[in-house]
């Protein structure tokens, strides 16, 4: 018995190693010296900016959201590789999953990043705390492509610290096979007819935003009683709510497990691919918008290379790749004006001027208000 078991283990190991070996690059045997050119069509891109190799050999540390840049998968262009090829600057790329995670890593010190891409309210906070370097937009030859709508925003009124990268708005996703009307208000998330069919965000800021928008409040209100009544509204909703979710929204909406959920327009497009019954609307009360922008932290040690990287990301061809991959709205006029852009006429990402929803940004909320609503959120969850 023992010998058999031993033999089985040995055989398994041999099999495993031989499989590993198969996955490695084919070995160059005699007469098999074939060079394969992997450069594909990258060389065809014409860049507008001026890229030199004078910084070749240096490295920049890029800290970005996960899955927020084309990386060569699914037929996309590997942006970082293309940049390294063009300039010789190496990229050390790492990702984070929330603004707060990124912030605490930088705040903690001991790290040096050259590029970060935070959201609006986080830029406001980091700017206030002196954590950002100025970005000299006048020296970026491609900055001219940024649409005016995304310039002079509240968190960077003089466009000194940030360059818009992606834009998204939260709307209402609904399953037209499960709901007979065409909702136009956040009120549908309180409609008892859809008991057990409704999802809401599982984080306080976004969940409160839905109630605040419905009630016509400011998302960044400093009036505590407004937060109280929004919390009451959420408690009221909880009785008919199916669940509080984040990423599970994808699966639950695609499977028809739930009928109504708030989420980002770009993500809705992905869901609709898998379930054509899904529809999207920007409720009339207004929606929450975010703008993620490229910034250079104070800790940056390679400013020149970082600027070159920003300009590279603003290249019309590169920005197009990014917009196609990320599927959020692009602030880049070179993309939105490009006929090859598959989402150019998408009414959800780029609503026509007359249909453009009322938007509200999140702003950096004072600590005492944050603690207050965190406590209210706990009450809602314990309710």
């Amino acid at each position, binding site marked *: 018995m023992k010998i058999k078991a031993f033999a089985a283990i040995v055989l398994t190991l041999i099999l495993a190693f031989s499989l590993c070996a198969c996955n490695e690059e084919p070995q160059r045997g005699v007469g098999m010296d074939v060079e394969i050119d992997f450069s594909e069509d990258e060389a065809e891109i014409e860049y507008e900016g001026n890229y030199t190799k004078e910084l070749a050999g240096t490295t920049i540390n890029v800290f970005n959201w996960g899955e927020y840049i084309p990386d060569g998968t699914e037929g996309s262009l590997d942006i970082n590789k293309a940049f390294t090829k063009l300039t010789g600057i190496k990229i050390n790329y790492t990702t984070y999953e929330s603004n707060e995670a990124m912030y605490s890593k930088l705040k903690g010190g001991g790290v040096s990043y050259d590029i970060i891409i935070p959201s609006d309210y986080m830029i406001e906070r980091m700017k206030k705390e002196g954590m950002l370097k100025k970005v000299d937009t006048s020296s970026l030859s491609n900055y001219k492509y940024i649409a005016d709508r995304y310039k002079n925003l509240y968190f960077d009124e003089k466009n000194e610290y940030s360059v818009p990268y992606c834009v998204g708005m939260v709307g209402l996703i609904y399953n037209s096979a499960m709901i007979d009307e065409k909702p136009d208000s956040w009120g549908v998330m309180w409609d008892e007819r859809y008991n057990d069919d409704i999802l809401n965000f599982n*984080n306080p800021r976004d969940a409160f935003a839905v109630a605040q928008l419905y009630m016509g409040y400011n998302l960044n209100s400093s009036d505590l009683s407004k937060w109280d009544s929004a919390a009451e509204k959420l408690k009221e909703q909880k009785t008919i709510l199916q*669940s509080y979710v984040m990423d599970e929204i994808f699966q639950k909406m695609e*499977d028809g*497990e739930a009928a109504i959920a708030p989420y980002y327009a770009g993500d809705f497009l992905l869901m609709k691919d898998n379930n054509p019954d899904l529809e999207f609307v920007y409720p009339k009360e207004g929606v929450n918008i975010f703008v993620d922008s490229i910034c250079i932290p104070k800790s940056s040690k390679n400013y020149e290379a970082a600027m070159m990287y920003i300009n590279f990301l603003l290249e019309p061809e590169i920005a197009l790749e990014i917009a196609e991959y990320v599927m959020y709205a692009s602030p880049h006029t070179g993309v939105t004006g490009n006929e090859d852009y598959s989402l150019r006429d998408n009414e959800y990402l780029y609503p026509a001027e007359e249909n453009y929803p009322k938007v509200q940004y999140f702003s950096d909320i004072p600590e005492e208000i944050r603690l207050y609503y965190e406590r209210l959120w706990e009450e809602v*969850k*314990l309710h």
Partner: protein
Amino acid sequence: MKNTSVKNPKPKNYNPIICTPYTVWSVIFIIVPLFMVAYYAFTDKTGAFTLANILEFPRYAKTFGISLLYSVEATIICLIIAYPLAYFMSNMKAGPKRMLSMLIMVPMWMNFLIRTYSWITILARTGIINTLLGKIGIGPLKLINTPGAIILGMVYNFLPYMILPIYTAMLKLDHSLLEAADDLGASPFMRLRKVILPLSMPGVISGITMVFVPCVSTFYISQKLGGGKTMLIGDVIEMQFQSAYNYNLGASISLVLMVLILISLAVMNHFADKDDEEGGGLII
């Protein structure tokens, strides 16, 4: 570790070289973290001493009650399933015995989160069970996002921790004692009550501990199978660290929870010791 232990002579097998790694390990990963929890629990954001965090606990009394209730239910269900199973398993022939213990062990090789997540696809309204029921004309049942689903998740995930200790205890049962009971005219029920049960008690206590403790403090199961609507005390703690960034409150709830668990285990062991003359039950 110096030679101060004149009063308590070192155990026979004590070997400093072998023991050092464990001592270092437990100091770094058990003692120090415990002190950090205690430190955070009794301080506020500025680091000043305060009892405010501890005094917050009554706010979560109801949640704690629910956690306790669900955990007790899950533990009882685990015990009811595991005890007979462990008994029959210990009496099986070597082949089937190995097979069965593999079947119990193999799911544990998979990540706990994935195992829990897979229950969503089974219990969901559009999930496997409801699809099958739909085929025979029974409308979709509400299976997921219910207390039942949470308890099911607990039982499913922690059942092996109940089976294995009881099974080990059963293996060690001296069969001559069982034969003696038979010879002396005990009915099978009597034999179970007077011989098997007391002798397997250390395994039962150990199993209850290993199921009950993780159940009380679990947070993932309730979020996924309860839809994030039923909060357990573990969820409250997780929330303080993950989203509310209130480490002090989170630490204080953990500390109170730890103390309450210790008390309930002490009570349980106290009763167990009465049953078990040898006092060999393992604790925690």
